[in-house]
């Protein structure tokens, strides 16, 4: 494992439409190493392997193989660099015989005067099965109708036939029976002894810990951790995969606060009669600052007060990037703040107005043209943009708001702010009354906002949500802040509830 680095990946990104399949992936694979890639469905494992194998091209980032820049334009090209892959989905051509499948795309080497010499080909194929100690299928038979296990073996033989330095195995074991699994394990061990490298994807965590040296955990396309197989446990891996709780699979998985030093908002000694008392805190760029407390703790007053909607008796709300004290909501709006209040239908949206009017409302100043003109086409374009980017399910932007489901209303509500150039976003119970899918969507948007260096104040009645998303958490009681907990400290429900009561 201390061998030389054979494959290095730096800042790899891959999008499919608006969703990130891989985001800033860094990875170093050494000679003699067996690496496991694990993560939930859609976490980007297969996408990552496919890029290494030349099936997809990365959007950005670079790869180095044996120290040389590596940008494969096809699987064959990858093969030339000593990399081959066994794919998760079956990758044999059914109406070709098994032997031909082993040398698919490379049958030219057996051609004699334009005709492929099948005998020579089958001989070479048989040699591969023997060399790697794999059970030999009937080489002249079409692969159609063969058992999955057999077809997998043909694929494996094909991958091995190029004598690869790096072997990529995507979910191979799940289609193998026990004895063939042992053969595969033996094969992996042999690769290790040959000072080559293997990358394995499997959903069986126990198996992965057993057969690998190191494990890389992916979540939402990002690498969230790398552990030594010998030192980890099933629970640790599982926790890294799904985040804090199995029920909240959409939360953040990392347990360290990550944000810049740049202060965006500085609140000092803020008091609002009967609501808040001596509130002081700072929010940083790229930070999610959580607020939680019991029902009368005053957390919902925080959002209002920061956005200039309350009449404070003392204290200041200072927007650092523009060096302005905020005294009113119009000022907050002009100083790159956004506010998503708790009561969607009564405080946030004009439910009898259409989606277009609701979407453009916070951006009217920016949309203004010459002579104050708000060109209808410009407004529609913006509303359409929001509708598409946040996939609002509707018949069109002319539809009235109250015809939408709660989740879609919230998409408009949140989207119209994220469509702006914000520095601070205040979210008060952003996932109230929306279904799981939209919830996940909203958390993803929050992560995106965090990446974009937007400071977020997350006020929520759902403790798990705050614990799942926040970098720091401020606990409130009777209008005062009583405790600050960082993500890498005692960030558990028990400890927070203890502070809340």
């Amino acid at each position, binding site marked *: 494992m201390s061998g030389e680095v054979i494959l290095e990946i730096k800042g790899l990104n891959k999008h499919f439409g608006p969703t990130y399949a891989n985001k800033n992936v860094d990875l170093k694979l050494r000679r003699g190493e067996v690496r496991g890639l694990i993560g939930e469905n859609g976490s980007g494992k297969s996408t990552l392997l496919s890029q290494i194998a030349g099936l997809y091209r990365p959007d950005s980032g670079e790869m180095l193989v044996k120290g040389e820049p590596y940008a494969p334009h096809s699987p064959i090209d990858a093969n030339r660099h000593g990399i081959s892959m066994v794919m998760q989905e079956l990758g044999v051509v059914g109406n070709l015989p098994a032997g031909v499948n082993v040398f698919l795309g490379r049958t030219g080497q057996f051609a004699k005067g334009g005709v492929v010499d099948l005998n020579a080909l089958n001989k070479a194929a048989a040699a591969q099965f023997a060399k790697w100690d794999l059970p030999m299928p009937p080489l002249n038979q079409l692969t159609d109708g063969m058992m999955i296990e057999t077809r997998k073996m043909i694929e494996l033989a094909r991958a091995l036939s190029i004598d690869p330095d790096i072997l990529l195995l995507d979910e191979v074991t799940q289609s193998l029976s026990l004895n063939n699994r042992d053969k595969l394990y033996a094969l992996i061990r042999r690769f290790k002894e040959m000072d080559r490298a293997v990358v394995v994807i499997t959903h069986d965590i126990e198996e992965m810990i057993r057969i690998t040296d190191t494990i890389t955990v992916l979540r939402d396309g990002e690498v969230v951790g790398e552990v030594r197989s010998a030192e980890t446990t099933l629970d640790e891996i599982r926790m890294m995969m799904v985040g804090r709780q199995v029920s909240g699979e959409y939360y953040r998985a990392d347990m360290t606060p990550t944000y810049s030093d740049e202060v965006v908002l500085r609140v000092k000694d803020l008091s609002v009669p009967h609501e808040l008392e001596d509130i002081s805190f700072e929010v940083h760029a790229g930070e999610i600052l959580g607020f939680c407390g019991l029902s009368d703790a005053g957390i919902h007053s925080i959002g209002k007060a920061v956005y200039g909607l309350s009449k404070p008796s003392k204290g200041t709300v200072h927007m650092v990037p523009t060096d302005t004290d905020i005294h009113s*909501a119009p000022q907050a709006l002009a100083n790159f703040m956004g506010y998503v209040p708790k009561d969607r239908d009564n405080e946030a949206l004009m439910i*009898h107005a259409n989606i277009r009017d609701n979407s453009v409302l916070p951006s009217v100043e920016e949309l203004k043209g010459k002579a104050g003109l708000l060109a209808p086409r410009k407004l529609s374009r913006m509303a359409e943009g929001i509708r598409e980017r946040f996939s609002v399910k509707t018949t069109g932007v002319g539809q009235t708001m109250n*015809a939408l489901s709660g989740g879609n209303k919230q998409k408009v509500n949140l989207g119209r702010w994220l469509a702006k150039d914000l520095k601070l976003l205040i979210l008060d119970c952003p996932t109230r009354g929306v279904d799981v899918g939209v919830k996940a969507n909203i958390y993803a948007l929050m992560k995106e906002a965090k990446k974009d260096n937007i400071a977020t104040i997350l006020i929520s009645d759902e403790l798990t949500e705050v614990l799942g998303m926040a970098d720091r958490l401020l606990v409130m009681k009777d209008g005062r802040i009583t405790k600050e907990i960082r993500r890498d400290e005692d960030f558990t429900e028990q400890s927070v509830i203890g502070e809340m009561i």
Partner: protein
Amino acid sequence: MKKGFDLKKLRLSDLVPFIAFVVLLVFFAVATGGKMFSSYSLQKLIEQSILTIIAASGVLFVVAQGSIDLTVGVNVALSGVVGLHVAQVTGIGWLMIPVSLAVGLLMGLLNGVIVAKCHVPSFTLSIAMLIGVRGIVNYIQTIVGVEYVPASMTFITASGVRIAAFFVLLLVMIYIFEFTRVGRYSRAIGENETTARFVGIPVDKMKILVFALSGLMAGFGSVFSIAAVGGTTQTMGSFLEMQVAMAIFFGGVLVTGGSSAKFYKVILGSLSITIIVYGLSLMGMSESHISQSVEGILLLLILFITILTNRQKKLKTEHKEEA
């Protein structure tokens, strides 16, 4: 202005003012034996609706916000009387226009500040102003009497000048209402004032602004009124506020304002009201008591239709939310 006009998107409540307009037109065309469509009548119709449309175009902003301005009638009287008097006293004829506008604007500004800052309901304020200011106007008129357009300004009495000025003003107001921040924010305030505040719209400022605008339009109205008659009268602007309110609501704008406030509705509503008044006079029912009772009955009818279509809309909404 509107591309891809989609019939399916038209709601019944949007069609009512069109239907009413056509029905009225046909009815009076038949009842007056075609006199309604003579070129003389048509020109008369437009001229008579000018004052209503001008005043209503300002009040529309206030109504869009869910408020009401019933002071436009007395405002027309006050600014007209004061403006003309200043022109007479100073001997500078053109002063009547800027002074009338300034008086109208100031009165609107006062209304706006009281509504926005003292949280007095606009309806209550309007009625108080209506009575109080009318008293002041009457007092002034007992001193200065009826005055006439100064000789240097008689060109404004030419109907061509008035109609041209009217169309310019109309286009400006349509632009402001439909295509600028002021109109958009006003409709947003009418839709949901809390939302408007929470988004960061300067609600108080917008309220003051639209009352001031309404006052300014009343100031313009006074100039048009004087130009049409040739001077001030004892009954100048009386019941104009009612005519304006009827025009706006007849046109299909809801009392609650918001998205239902559209400029074309004001034009349609104003024309309809004028057709009723003018049509009745053509039929020989010029005695004001008859025409006024007909107007009153029509207003009631409109309110009924408005409330009914509104209730249907609400019911539909509730059903959707349940589902």
